[in-house]
């Protein structure tokens, strides 16, 4: 593939990561014997492990993940809104064993990029020829004054799915009618750009239905956000009395919290919350910093062609931890980056150069339990940097009636089944 050709077939083959595989005979790949290690069993890591083994069947692929159960972030806002059970978010890596992936239940604690080793929490050391890291995010504790790890019990972030998700749900259920729910959204970049606004929609939907005298106040460190016109139209139509968004120029930026007193402070206001959901500033998962692949921003610079770190050769980084803009920090992006990365590693192992491909992302956001909007972007890594393919992708139509929004909700549900089946099935 040379340059960008935007016919449908090119896009589709790019999405299947097949473009990067052209010119490689199965026999050549089958004979490649390498030690490949993947850190992190989320959407990026699980997908990478599976496709590395599919593309390089003679190589050993080891996936390092400490948690038995993985709770998916996509759709977890529906759990917070009461429209979905937490059990529907739970996945395990067991089926990857059937593909020949070795699963190690331990935490990766140190990475030596020069010696090409990773040291695990059980004391063992693994060596690798190529390392793939998909470490997700960690919170920047203290970056928002008063918000540390202990504060998450009183004021959950629920920005990693699991116990924080159910805690926030239980707090909403326990709140008396007439209460004030306060959310705080951070400045970019952060995991799931439309996520705070989907969550606000679904909490407002719950309040309107079950606690109609209550209100949600969404305080924002920004003045603009993903799918803003679509969200604001939905809020005006559906939740005019239950959701208020206050942007940075309307004095909405949260500068301090007091979890004991349940107060949230902006530069000018002190707000008493009954339930507070604080989404704090974030950075790449801690192991990225330990491995030396995160820069001073806290995120990981990568070459867009093979998702190889620009700081430590031989280490590839995927998903939320990367600086991959304009690709957003999403499960969709992580999954597709993993497939492209696996294909490029197969090329590199066969002594070939990485090849440009076309990537895409769709973020669905629910605006009610049965209604959704979406944004789609199409990207190319031709030349090494990820860039938008102008004119491709798009947004849900404004003024889309209930039938359009319900159809997108059905598409979103189908997407979730598909991506989880591919990553974990």
């Amino acid at each position, binding site marked *: 593939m040379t340059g960008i050709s935007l016919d449908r077939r090119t896009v589709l083959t790019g999405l299947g990561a097949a473009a990067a595989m052209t010119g490689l005979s199965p026999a050549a790949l089958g004979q490649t014997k390498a030690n490949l290690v993947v850190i992190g069993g989320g959407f990026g890591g699980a997908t990478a492990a599976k496709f590395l083994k599919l593309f390089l069947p003679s190589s050993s692929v080891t996936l390092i993940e400490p948690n038995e159960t993985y709770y998916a972030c996509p759709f977890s806002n529906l759990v917070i809104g009461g429209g979905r059970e937490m059990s529907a978010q739970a996945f395990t890596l067991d089926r990857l064993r059937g593909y020949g992936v070795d699963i190690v239940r331990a935490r990766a604690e140190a990475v030596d990029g020069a010696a090409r080793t990773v040291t695990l929490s059980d004391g063992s050391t693994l060596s690798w020829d190529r390392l793939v890291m998909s470490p997700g995010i960690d919170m920047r504790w203290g970056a928002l004054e008063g918000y540390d790890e202990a504060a998450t019990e009183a004021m959950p972030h629920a920005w990693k799915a699991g116990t924080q998700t159910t805690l926030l749900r239980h707090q909403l259920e326990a709140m008396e009618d007439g209460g004030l729910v306060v959310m705080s959204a951070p400045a970019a970049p952060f995991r799931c750009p439309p996520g705070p606004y989907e969550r606000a929609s679904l909490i407002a939907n719950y309040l309107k239905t079950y606690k109609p005298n209550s209100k949600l106040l969404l305080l924002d460190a920004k003045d603009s956000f993903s799918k803003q016109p679509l969200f604001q139209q939905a809020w005006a139509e559906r939740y005019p009395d239950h959701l208020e968004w206050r942007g*940075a*120029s*309307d*004095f909405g930026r949260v500068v301090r919290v007091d979890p004991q007193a349940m107060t949230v402070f902006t*530069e*000018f206001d002190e707000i008493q919350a009954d339930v507070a959901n604080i989404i704090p500033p974030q950075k790449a998962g801690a192991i990225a910093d330990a491995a030396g692949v995160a820069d001073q921003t806290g995120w990981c610079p990568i070459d867009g062609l093979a998702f190889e770190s620009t700081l430590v050769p031989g280490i590839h980084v995927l998903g939320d931890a990367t600086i991959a803009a304009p690709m957003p920090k999403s499960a969709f992006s992580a999954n597709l980056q993993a497939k492209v990365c696996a294909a490029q590693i197969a090329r590199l192992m066969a002594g070939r150069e990485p090849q440009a491909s076309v990537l895409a992302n769709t973020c669905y956001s629910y605006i009610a339990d049965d209604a959704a909007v979406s944004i789609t972007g199409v990207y190319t890594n031709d030349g090494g940097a990820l860039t938008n393919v102008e004119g491709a992708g798009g947004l849900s139509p404004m003024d889309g009636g209930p039938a359009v929004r319900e159809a997108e909700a059905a598409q979103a549900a189908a997407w979730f089944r598909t991506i989880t089946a591919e990553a974990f099935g």
Partner: protein
Amino acid sequence: MTIRISAPDTASKGEVIELKAMIQHKMETGYRRDSRGDVVARDVITRFECRYNGELVFASDFHPGIAANPFLSFHTRATESGTLDFTWTDQDGQSWSETHELTVE
């Protein structure tokens, strides 16, 4: 023009107090062009002053590089009860003010 001020209502004599002030203003640089290619006229605040019982305690000159909705945070020493006056003036001489009463004990 919405203005927000954050200042204590009371302070002890000699105490250093924090004052915060923000005005909603687009701070149009004069360098941007609209969708027809026409230059968008410059519209910026050029001066901010804070006076404490008439005495100038903080001032700032603004230029087109200052972002929209300029936010200032600064300190002064509480000396006597009185009025804090916050005034913004734009390039055309138009001004906006807000006051805050401070009681010093």
